[in-house]
């Protein structure tokens, strides 16, 4: 049992408590998770006395329950385990003033304020590499900054054009002609002057990681789609796997605007090569009699809010990786937002023992075991 008699507990104010007869429902309203217990309304009412200021011992005494400590403690422990009750072991620092909602969200996955502090520290200490400042990279970077990320390594070789402005956030008419990395760095600093960014003005292609000193990064998000996102992701994977760096394949790119790519935690979840092998199995069709006719006028469209929606999912996942949450939805999964159905079509992919990268005889198998 992790709850002790001298701990101070708080019934978290975002938890809705609903009693009907002898059944009480605890509804974690932020994440819409419900815990239902057989519990009398009178007992549930007592929990409102857990204000975070007094110890469990005092709480029991006030309610005349000191004699029943052994019966009450396991209940409190269960509710703490399920994030209904929060242990007030530490205060929140001054950053609580700027990110109150981020702190509160993390309480849904933590047992104590100390643990929330730990997670915030991880997010703020992390250095995130974002490759490609296009219609996905800009939204992802800005979202992460707004949730507390303070260190970025930005990669893009392009300059801002008029035709970028309808789908790339943070860029303005005044920034046309500037390097994207410069214009976007200015935007990040406007939002948070404490942010530290470094930039690499180059294309992600073969030899990129030999040409540049990357330094320590906690997460790489690939939003580069030239020539294709498969090719760029492979280059990222080959660097990230032996270094044990989590990496995410962004979506929203050319041809697959509605796609959201997978999260790879090296050695734990299906890697890019597992995905490729699985997809090859799925797509094994005879293409010998198919001929692609040339569309002389071919020009792919872009629907800005669709890229932004894809970015939202990627940024959610990135935050989970950085904060150390275990509720990833894109590990071993890629998804597509179907505009016609207005819903996600998820494709799950298992890790493969025969994977050339992370399988038993794979190139990077031993590396991750050490």
């Amino acid at each position, binding site marked *: 049992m992790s709850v002790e008699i001298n701990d101070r507990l708080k019934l978290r104010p975002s938890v809705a408590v609903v009693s009907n007869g002898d059944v009480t429902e605890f509804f974690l309203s932020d*994440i819409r998770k419900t815990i239902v217990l057989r519990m009398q309304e009178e007992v549930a009412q007592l929990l409102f006395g857990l204000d975070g200021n007094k110890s469990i011992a005092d709480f029991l005494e006030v309610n005349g329950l000191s004699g029943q400590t052994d019966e009450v403690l396991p209940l409190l422990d269960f509710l703490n385990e399920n994030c209904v009750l929060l242990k007030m072991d530490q205060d929140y620092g001054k950053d609580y003033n700027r990110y109150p909602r981020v702190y509160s969200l993390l309480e849904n996955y933590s047992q104590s304020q100390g643990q929330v502090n730990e997670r915030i520290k991880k997010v703020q200490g992390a250095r995130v590499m974002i490759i490609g400042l296009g219609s996905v990279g800009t939204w992802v970077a800005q979202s992460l900054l707004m949730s507390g990320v303070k260190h970025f390594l930005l990669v893009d070789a392009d300059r801002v054009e008029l035709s970028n402005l309808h789908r790339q956030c943070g860029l303005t008419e005044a920034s046309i002609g500037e390097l994207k990395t410069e214009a976007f760095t200015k935007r990040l600093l406007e939002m948070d002057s404490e942010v530290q960014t470094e930039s690499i003005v180059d294309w992600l292609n073969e030899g990129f990681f030999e040409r540049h000193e990357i330094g320590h990064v906690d997460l790489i998000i690939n939003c580069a789609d030239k020539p294709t996102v498969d090719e760029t992701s492979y280059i990222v994977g080959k660097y990230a796997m032996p270094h044990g760096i989590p990496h995410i394949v962004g979506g929203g790119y050319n041809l697959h605007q509605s796609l959201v790519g997978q999260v790879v935690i090296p050695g734990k979840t299906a890697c890019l090569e597992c995905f490729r092998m699985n997809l090859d199995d799925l797509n094994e069709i005879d293409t010998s009699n198919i001929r692609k006719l040339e569309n002389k006028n071919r020009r792919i469209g872009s629907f800005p809010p669709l890229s932004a929606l894809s970015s939202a999912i990627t940024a959610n996942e990135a935050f989970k990786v950085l904060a150390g949450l275990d509720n990833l939805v894109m590990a071993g999964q890629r998804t597509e937002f179907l505009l016609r159905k207005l819903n996600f079509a998820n494709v799950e992919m298992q890790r493969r023992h025969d994977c050339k990268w992370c399988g038993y005889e794979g190139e990077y198998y031993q590396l991750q075991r050490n």
Partner: protein
Amino acid sequence: MDKPNQRNNAIYEINPAIDVYAIGDDVLEFYFINNRRRVTLQVSPQVIELVANIDGKNGIDDLCKNLGIDDMDNVQVFVDYLVSQAILLLLAEQEKEKSMLAPKDIERYDRQIGYFTSLYTQSGYRAQLAIQEQTVLIFGNGAIGSGIAMQLAMSGVRHFILVDKDIVTCDSLERHFFFRETDIGRDKCEAMADCLKRIDDQVHCELHNMIIDYDTDVDSWIEQSTFVVNTLDEPYIGLTSMKIGRICYALRKPLYVAGGFDAHLMSTGELIVPDETPCVDCYTSYFQKALRNWNPQYNTPAVSELHQANDQFEVGGLASMSLFSISYAVIIILSYMVTGDAHYSQGRGELLFDQLHIDYLNVQKNPYCHVCGNQ
């Protein structure tokens, strides 16, 4: 139907956002890259050659002559069908449509125009124009309202009426995509209008720094606008939507009731179009029934001082969660502006942080509704 310009050696181009495949020697498949629609046709080998030669330069009669095709009536039927499916575009028509937009706007929205061209049977230029001609009234400049305004301005909306009473604070950082540290202390509406102006110098905003309560007269704002968005969650989104929704119904204005507010962080919100979709009161009576036995109690005395100023119960959330609700809303709003079709939308749904599937409530029109019902 007499279409003289089509019969007279008209020039066509293949929709730029389509890939064309010949399968074997008698099947043509058109694949819409953006929405993945497929049109598959069984044709003769000659037709495959004809389609392969359409280049936006040579007239259809000339192409046929070169290929030795002489059944021009059937060619015309086939071509008309492809035009109706937005697979082929008539060049002369395209040039005419193109002239509706300023050259600078064509450059600026090039990719978006391409997207609309590929999706709808009308031209992308006309779709873009429809967006640029909107006046959007947005109630509430919070995480969702300001985000929707930004994305709409990015896509070409140039007239906004913004209503909000708040000022920018230091914790706006975690919620508002328009935030700048130097904006702290300013009226949200003004900071927002500046942000929209930086995106597009042609944006014009009418600002109302005020609280909306039961007596506030909002009719004239709604009358001026072509689309209304409500994100006011004080005192409660259902309540403000009821007031705004009834006026929108009377004035026949489309309304989007946004999601993403407290306790519904990644909800989709819903499009409300008079008589086409359930109205706000239909939603209200649905929730009254659904939540009949739901009497939640919150530990409000334990709310920290900081949160007391913002919300009542220490709401948690991330900017990226708001970004989902914002982007979803803008997908529906732009689609409606361009097509006028409300049936595409699905009504209220919800995405969870721990799960990637939107659950839709499937709220129906209430036949007994005292606003939109039959009686």
